[in-house]
């Protein structure tokens, strides 16, 4: 147990994880397809997750945040090495899409595979000094590796989000430590699109050395031996050496959190929070979970799981998301999805005047509710469509789930991957939207099917990615809202 002292004032009172969610993009590519395209054999079994052409780190992150089911928060910290905007706060766009109030803290964390745990550390700090909670920490990555490199097969795409606060803590942060080390393993310069990898036996030795320093400090601080940790989360850096690294760090194989390399891949700076969420899905009260973040040094955080974990409902568990994969039919499709917007930047050029009133309203997804007849309408209106009232209308945030009222599968719509499913969706709480449906086999679509709204790239042009809502099928377990 840690004794609170002046230097660890953050540990006063219970601070920790109050919610967790993962989002894996629905597309997959079998590693044998990647290998076959280059005339080789897979370097790893199984398949990896992959973005569709309308996804990026920001859209994955938003799905993960929505998985937390929060209607308000004290801030959003977004961690990614592949955020779509290099100048413009990505976290602010996420906050708008969640329709959170503007009086919150937003920050982007980047430039390291450790960005996820760095953001988590900063969130623990912010809650510790008494600022509004929870802080949403969301990490997402869609890293690019050189075609034909092992990394092209190792990497996956995905996002994970945590809520950090004092209320309804399911895993208390008991101790933490960070070390800095300018060690070379994966790098990407400002002018590079793809990661340069130095993966080798030497790299793995460096990983073990750096991670050990952070772990030792946390264990010393908490007076624990490695054997007393229930679950250690070691983000894989090189699939060939993961098990050996755990052994070298003094952990038995059964203590090590499963890494999902054969179903997901290494999802960049989202890996630590993804694996933490996976550990929490199966955790019991009293479990000690040691989370490690690695990259230019290491972070280590020791969590102790509280009894509240037993009542915490994960809206869309990882196992369910793994079950829902849509396989790319070819390597070419996988690459086309990743590169489409690199080569298509001819969308409409929009003024920031238009953006301010139209796109922001659309991204916040505000509609109008009539006080006379109760009808919810989108886009916002000055006169009720049904009863013509002009005096009792008020702006409301529209629901993010709904039901297909009617649809079509359109082969004429210009798209990198036709056909395009277009649906008229009645959203929960009222209001009707006209949306493209994504991540769906056209033959799955039915009138009455349940969908969730998902922010996607519609186009690009004029220096902007144009984000707007689409809808996607709701997963089997995707219907409820998390408690906590």
């Amino acid at each position: 147990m840690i004794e609170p002292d002046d230097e660890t004032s953050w540990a006063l009172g219970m601070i920790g994880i109050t919610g967790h969610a993962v989002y894996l993009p629905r597309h997959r590519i079998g590693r044998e397809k990647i290998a076959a395209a280059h005339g080789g054999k897979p370097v790893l079994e199984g398949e990896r997750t992959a973005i569709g052409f309308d996804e990026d780190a920001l859209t994955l992150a938003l799905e993960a945040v929505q998985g937390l089911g929060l209607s308000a928060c004290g801030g959003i910290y977004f961690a990614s090495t592949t955020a779509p905007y290099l100048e413009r706060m990505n976290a602010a766009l996420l906050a708008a899409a969640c329709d959170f109030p503007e009086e919150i803290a937003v920050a982007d964390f980047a430039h390291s595979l450790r960005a996820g745990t760095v953001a988590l550390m900063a969130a623990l700090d912010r809650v510790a000094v008494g600022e509004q909670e929870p802080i949403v920490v969301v990490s997402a990555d869609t890293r690019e590796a050189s075609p034909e490199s092992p990394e092209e097969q190792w990497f996956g795409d995905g996002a994970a989000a945590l809520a950090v606060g004092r209320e309804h803590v399911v895993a208390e942060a008991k101790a933490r430590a960070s070390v800095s080390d300018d060690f070379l393993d994966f790098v990407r310069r400002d002018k590079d699109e793809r990661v340069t990898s130095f993966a080798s036996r030497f790299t793995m030795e460096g990983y073990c050395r750096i991670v050990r320093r952070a772990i030792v400090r946390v264990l010393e601080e908490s007076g624990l031996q490695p054997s007393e940790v229930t679950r250690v989360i070691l983000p894989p850096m090189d699939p060939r050496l993961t098990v050996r690294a755990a052994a070298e760090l003094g952990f038995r194989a059964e203590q090590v959190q499963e890494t999902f390399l054969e179903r997901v891949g290494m999802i960049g700076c989202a890996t630590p929070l993804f694996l933490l969420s996976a550990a929490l899905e199966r955790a019991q009260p009293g479990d000690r979970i040691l989370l490690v973040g690695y990259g230019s040094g290491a972070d280590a955080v020791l969590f102790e799981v509280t009894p509240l974990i037993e009542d915490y409902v994960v809206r869309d568990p990882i196992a369910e998301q793994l079950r829902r994969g849509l396989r790319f039919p070819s390597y070419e499709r996988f690459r086309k999805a990743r590169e489409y917007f690199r080569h298509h930047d001819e969308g409409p050029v929009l003024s920031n005047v238009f953006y301010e009133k139209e796109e922001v309203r659309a991204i916040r997804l505000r509609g109008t509710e009539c006080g006379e007849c109760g009808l919810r309408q989108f886009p916002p209106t000055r006169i009720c469509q049904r009863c013509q009232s002009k005096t009792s209308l008020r702006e409301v945030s529209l629901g993010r789930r709904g039901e297909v009222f009617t649809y079509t599968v359109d082969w004429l719509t210009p798209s990198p991957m036709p056909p395009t499913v277009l649906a008229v969706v009645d959203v929960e709480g009222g209001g009707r939207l006209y949306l493209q449906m994504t991540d769906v086999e056209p033959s799955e679509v039915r009138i009455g099917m349940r969908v969730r709204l998902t922010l996607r790239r519609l186009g690009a042009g004029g220096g902007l990615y144009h984000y707007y809502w689409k809808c996607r099928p709701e997963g089997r377990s995707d219907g409820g809202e998390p408690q906590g």
Partner: protein
Amino acid sequence: MAESLKDKVAIIGIGCTKFGELHDKSLSELMAEAAFAAYEDAGIEPERVEAAWLGTFSPGFGGGKASVTLADALRLYGKPITRVENYCATGTDAFRNACLAVAAGVYEVVLVVGAEKLRDRPVRGLQREGTHPYLEAGATPPGLFALAANRYFHRFGGDRRTLAKVAVKNHHNGALNPKAHFRMEVSEEQVLAAPLVAYPFGLYDCCPTTDGAAAVVICRADRARQFREDPIYVKGIGLAVETGWPFFDPTFEYIGFPATVAAAAEAYRMAGIRNPVREISVAEVHDCFTWTEISNYEDLGFCKKGEGRYFIEEGRSALAGDLPVNPSGGLKSFGHPIGASGVRMLTEIVLQLRGQAGARQVKNAELGLVHNLGGPGSVACVVVLGR
């Protein structure tokens, strides 16, 4: 009660180009060909025209959205010309405005031209301009009507086989029409085997992308017999505009189009029609997609909502049926150059009422109907003509 237009305006001349992919003809050539054919049919010189209305949807090359497009095509200068654009009801709405001016007594002889050169546009299908970059992203004309077709099937049953019967009928009629874009019969099997465009619509469920122009000369009804023995009179006109965004309207049932119902009610009121299926001899309705024709049967009051499929299945809208619909071949087979269509449909009904429709002539045609439906079911215009 507002006044009726009944018997105040007459059509004394008609002209129509061959419709099709007219790759070697410009928009202004097409407009001139149609207008001069109408002058000749009316037996007038161009100088006799006091004003003109142009219906065209796409901006012209050079004239943009101004009426100079028509002035330069016809060298018709120093006179009032108005350009009308109202989705696919553009042609009939141009005609309607011209009729209002003549009925008001402001002009005696007026020219109406509808024209469109879709094959000059850079995309296949209809290029949609001025749409919202997010809220309508991905919408196409077949996709927008397919939303209604799928909901309709969900409510009332029917499937792609029902739709195919409309294509088979209209292709049959078009094969009889020398000016039609397509002059070929198709079988139900061919229609069903065609590639999908926007489910449930396959290629043969969609009207083609067509070039063409049509024109009519109208005059005050009381002067019509100075020009010809068999003028055709305007009995009623209705135009109704509903929402351009039905897909955002939570109260919209998506099984038909209130714009058509309202426009028809107004036209029928003026014409004194109480039982359209009995009183109307022949109709040219907006079959942009096969399902639209089925919905039109219902919205125009030819049958009850949900029973349109039987109207086609029982052959009631065939050339030999009790209310032949689209004897010209319809938009489906004659082609659909947006602004031209409404005016072209008027010329067909005039031919039918004059008894000049040749192999596709409907027997004893006394009263004819023209109907356009524009946008995603947003704008409808109904015109009733009679002898």
